[in-house]
């Protein structure tokens, strides 16, 4: 099922109630039975909904409490007074601020390059015949199934060694991490965009060529704009994937000696959770988690239809 189809279905489902009044179809079941069943549904759905929301709300609300209240009455939901200073502490002393900005830079660069290079490669592989085309395509596909742990040791050793010659490409460098993200995101991006470019009509391409467009112009001016729905889906997938990445940063972004830290938000959270063990800064930990969580949730709520379609479309493709 394509993403476009899912999007259409979601849209159709939402348009449902509006059309309901004009719809005359045979009835199933009695209204009384219906409402019993509907109440039963809502009961279960509300319980699960509460199980999802309650922990999240507890974390956000605890971020406003002070440690005394957290320790004395962990179950209380309402803070005695709003302790905004928790956020300041997590942002500054907990380095969440620096890590947050660093993650934005890395994910921004990573997703942009992934989309650009991924669609370029997918386009060429999907629409041009040349010797080795299949081999390269399957080489990219192979990366979809192999676990990252299989590559961990050589990736770490290779990056450290390269760093002794070119520091920018060595461990603990933003540029290196961006390129690593791109390398590891290419498989899925190419797999997804390959099937998308295949479906674009050949006639448009030929017309553009007749008008004197070069291959490059054809790609950037005609094909890429036509592939927009696919780009959005796979883009959402990559943003979330790279934002939530933790293993590659933990492996490759450890400062050695006196180097400055260039860590990402996942590492910041791990650090906070380890640190509170001996500093017992619970409110700071909750504030850090809240700051890492809320932006993502807000963006998701705004774009929820695209995000849901993008993520679910990604696996049924």
């Amino acid at each position, binding site marked *: 099922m394509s993403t476009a189809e899912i999007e259409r279905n979601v849209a159709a*489902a939402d348009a449902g109630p509006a059309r309901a009044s004009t719809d005359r179809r045979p009835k199933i079941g009695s209204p009384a039975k219906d409402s019993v069943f509907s109440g039963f549904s809502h009961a*279960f759905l509300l319980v699960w909904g509460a199980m999802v929301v309650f922990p999240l709300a507890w974390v956000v609300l605890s971020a406003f409490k002070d440690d005394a209240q*957290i320790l004395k009455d962990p179950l209380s939901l309402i803070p005695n007074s709003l302790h905004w200073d928790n956020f300041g502490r997590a942002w500054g002393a907990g380095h969440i601020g620096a890590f947050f900005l660093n993650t934005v830079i890395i994910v921004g660069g990573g997703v942009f390059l992934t989309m650009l290079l991924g669609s370029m490669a997918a386009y060429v592989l999907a629409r041009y015949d040349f010797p080795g085309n299949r081999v390269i395509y399957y080489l990219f596909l192979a990366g979809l199934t192999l676990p990252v742990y299989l590559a961990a040791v*050589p990736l770490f050793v290779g990056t450290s060694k390269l760093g002794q010659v070119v520091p920018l490409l060595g461990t603990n460098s933003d540029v290196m991490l961006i390129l690593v993200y791109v390398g590891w995101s290419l498989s899925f991006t190419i797999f997804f965009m390959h099937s998308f470019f295949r479906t674009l009509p050949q006639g448009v391409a030929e017309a553009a060529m007749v008008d004197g467009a070069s291959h490059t112009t054809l790609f950037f001016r005609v094909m890429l704009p036509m592939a927009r729905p696919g780009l959005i889906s796979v883009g959402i997938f990559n943003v979330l994937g790279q934002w939530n990445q933790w293993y590659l940063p933990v492996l490759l972004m450890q400062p050695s000696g006196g180097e400055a830290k260039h860590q990402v938000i996942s590492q910041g959270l791990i650090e906070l959770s380890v640190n509170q063990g001996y500093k017992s800064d619970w409110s700071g930990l909750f504030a850090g988690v809240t700051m890492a969580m809320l932006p993502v949730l807000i963006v998701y709520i705004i774009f929820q239809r695209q*995000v849901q379609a993008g993520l679910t479309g990604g696996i049924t493709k």
Partner: protein
Amino acid sequence: MRHGKTRFVVGFLALPLALYVWYVVWPFAQSIGYSFTDWGGYSDEQHYIGFANYVRLFNDELIRIAFWHNVFFLITVPLITIGLALFFAFLLNVGGRGNRAGIRGVWGSGVYKIIFFFPQVLSLVLIAVMWQAIYRGDDQGLLNGLLIKTGLVDKDHPLGFVADPTPFLGVPAVLWWILFIAVWGGVGFYLVLFSAAMQAIPKDIYEAALLDGASRFTSFFRVTLPLLRDTVSIAWVYLGFIALDMYALVFVMTPSQGGPNHASEIFASVLNFTAFNSSRSGRYGYACAMGVALGIFTMILAALQLRITRRERLEF
């Protein structure tokens, strides 16, 4: 017409391919090579030792523990997640107004879907850190607090959660608590996936069932579920991949990343422990052998997926 084609193809492919080969393919290939050596990691000294690392794998007590823990997740994670997701998808879609054929959401189903999907957009690390606070082993954690207040747990003996190695049904308690988080995080995604698939089923199929006198329940079990088979199979395989990779939860939540006392070791945690913080001999070479073994395991799963998805699909 196709002037400059070769230059274009090479120009577009060179950079992506170079990045991919350097950061993905080459490390994989090296891993396979190193797995036949006794490379310790401290120096460049390494000797070819044939399959000795693989033989060692089979006799390694830690690996055996980790393997069975992976199998535990491989069975439970997909089973429970898919079961719950289907159940909720059923409630969400079949509980709707009964005066129309087809799959229709209950009132507010859009809101439920948005909320159930929350954990999917949060990172595993964030979820792990959050649940660590919920699972605190004294009376100040959310869950212990709730259990003590409701009288289910004695205040002087709060639950240990992820620090608790006592077996429950033959499996350490810590694994069950981690399993709970994995299911908590996964259900929403598969619910949305199944919902979309249910709504893609054309209405005339339901109208036909309706004319034949099928009730809402019959049409769900006889029409909807069979038509969802492909989606469920795909979900099964993806959950299998996730079950093989529970490392984020183990890494953040369990004592000494695989503890207490190795009660929550999984393949990935043993691999990383061997490679990066242990004094085991020949650790890099041995860790690479573990990686290759895990890779082979995953490939078997992927082959299974190909078999499943290649089955003829019903096109609407």
